[in-house]
């Protein structure tokens, strides 16, 4: 059974927190604020839903904000059912009435306090209790400014998620995507819930294929600003940009090796699109990886760094192949349907996302690499650019519905979907960032 829940319509205005990150160049305009209206829709539920109570934290508006962000995160995951906490009045020092919370139906209770420790300085203390075993599962304190309260709330939600499900949460991670608005392209970085967007680059020419470095400090992407596709590596903290692949013809589809030292890129310098390797910091040490008479593109490294998955039409139609990073024979991976592109490997290396065309519609599918079995995760009709969350439990992709491009997410088992639509622009090329990419 599916039900649609319209969670919220929020207006978000990014502040100047990242002003120092962003640079102004001759033809790339730059802005320190982005405004967008964001709407979240969720359908479906997880296979198992843990009943959890998130009490308002003590500390007025900041305490309520913390609790609201945690509740929204856990709800969006589809794996939690929120228990009503009306009248709870808990602080971090409160003794917890385990039996009462069990009666209310909560297996877990999170609560805490926000206190002011100086001018624009806050301490957030949080506890998580297990009401069945009547014990505290977690307790920790964070310090930060008002601008860091949302991030602290995401970090608390991550701790709750991991304590209860055993899997690390991804609420404090970030996503990158391209927002197209009336002739301008903005490479934006936002929190995993789509809030707090920051502009890394603005251009009048297309920007495609953003790819996070494994440490979350850099993005590689393709910009058409010079009149043709060129691969750049962009350091987010300094806004320093290096054109790492700018050869004759096209330069595109950057992918990072797990150690962050090497980029796989696709070049047409020798004719049709083929995969090459370069040093990630300066584009040096060019070596060609594939040699096929047709198209090889969209490389992505396996988690162990030993092989590369890619799209090739060497069989006549685009399919996914795998090749050792040292070169050699490519092995075909995808066999269902006549159009499989955009491979993305799960963090555990067991599952491969693809975009597959079925009956003229583009859908995201997951291929189990050991059995070869396939699960269609999305309904289409035009789903593109899938990427795994760093815990492998969710998939972010770009959907087009009713003529509107939007961000969409689906759980890795396909049970739970959500869309994030920006009301005044088109979202393209989303990609989920790694763990530990705190700014």
């Amino acid at each position: 059974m599916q039900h649609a829940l319209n969670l919220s319509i929020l207006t978000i205005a990014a502040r100047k927190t990242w002003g120092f990150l962003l640079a102004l160049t001759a033809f790339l305009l730059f802005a320190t604020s982005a405004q967008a209206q964001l709407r979240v829709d969720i359908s479906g539920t997880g296979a198992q839903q843990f009943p959890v109570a998130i009490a308002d934290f003590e500390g007025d508006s900041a305490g309520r904000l913390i609790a609201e962000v945690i509740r929204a995160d856990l709800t969006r995951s589809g794996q939690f059912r929120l228990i009503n906490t009306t009248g709870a009045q808990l602080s971090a020092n409160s003794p917890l009435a385990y039996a009462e919370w069990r009666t209310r139906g909560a297996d877990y209770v999170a609560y805490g306090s926000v206190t002011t420790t100086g001018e624009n300085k806050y301490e957030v203390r949080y506890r998580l209790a297990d009401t069945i075993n009547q014990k505290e599962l977690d307790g920790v304190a964070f310090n930060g400014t008002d601008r860091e309260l949302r991030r602290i709330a995401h970090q608390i939600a991550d701790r709750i998620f991991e304590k209860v499900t055993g899997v690390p949460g991804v609420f404090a991670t970030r996503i990158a995507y391209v927002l197209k608005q009336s002739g301008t392209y903005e490479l934006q970085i936002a929190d995993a819930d789509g809030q707090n967007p920051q502009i890394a680059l603005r251009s009048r020419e297309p920007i495609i294929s953003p790819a996070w470095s494994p440490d979350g400090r850099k993005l590689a992407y393709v910009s058409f600003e010079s009149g043709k596709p060129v691969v750049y590596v962009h350091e987010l903290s300094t806004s320093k940009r290096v054109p790492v692949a700018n050869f004759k013809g096209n330069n595109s589809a950057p992918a990072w090796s797990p150690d962050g030292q090497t980029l796989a890129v696709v070049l047409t310098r020798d004719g049709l699109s083929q995969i090459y390797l370069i040093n990630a910091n300066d584009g040096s040490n060019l070596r060609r990886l594939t040699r096929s008479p047709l198209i090889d593109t969209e490389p992505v490294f396996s988690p162990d760094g030993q092989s590369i998955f890619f799209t090739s039409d060497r069989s006549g139609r685009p399919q996914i192949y795998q090749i050792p990073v040292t070169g050699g024979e490519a092995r075909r991976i995808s066999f269902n349907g006549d159009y499989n592109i955009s491979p993305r490997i799960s963090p555990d290396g067991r599952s491969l996302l693809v975009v597959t065309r079925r009956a003229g519609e583009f859908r995201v599918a997951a291929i189990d690499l050991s059995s070869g079995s396939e699960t269609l995760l999305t309904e289409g009709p035009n789903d593109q650019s899938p990427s795994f969350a760093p815990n492998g439990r969710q998939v972010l992709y770009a959907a087009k519905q009713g003529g509107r491009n939007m961000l969409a997410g689906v759980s890795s088992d396909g049970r739970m979907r959500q869309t994030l639509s920006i009301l005044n622009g088109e979202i393209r090329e989303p990609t989920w960032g790694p763990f530990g990419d705190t700014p």
Partner: protein
Amino acid sequence: MKLRIVNTLTVLTLGLGLAACSTVSLDDSAAGAGSSGSGGASGSGVMDPFNPSSVLSKNRSVYFEFNSYTVSSQYGDLVSTHAQYLTKNPNQKIMIEGNTDASGGTEYNLALGNRRAEAVRRNLTLLGAQDVQIETISFGKEKPKALGDTEADYAENRRADIVYLRP
């Protein structure tokens, strides 16, 4: 109808490029572009890729069928005209820009657009143009000329354009 409007815009763009970059005065270039319909002398017989009336700037787009990367025989004259000019002007360089319709993935379409541009390059070099005169690039589905969602729009975007580069 839509196709015609788009083509007119292309010519206008070329005209502006001419006005901005060549030594022809603004007035002359405007008159040349305006009289292209009636004045046969300034018309398509002129072999000058930077003259908007020339066949070299008027006929510079090769269209492709859905899912196709072979240059249809109907473009034989177009290709041989450009090949002859390039053969006679070995220092002239061109860019062939491949494009695709909006259907499918960003990077795969970028590769497909390049495949279309490469097909035009092969045809030109078979007829005498030199590889060093030609760079192929692709915009994939990123820079559509027709912005709608009809089949006519999609057909307009399955295209490779020959673009002459000023020395």
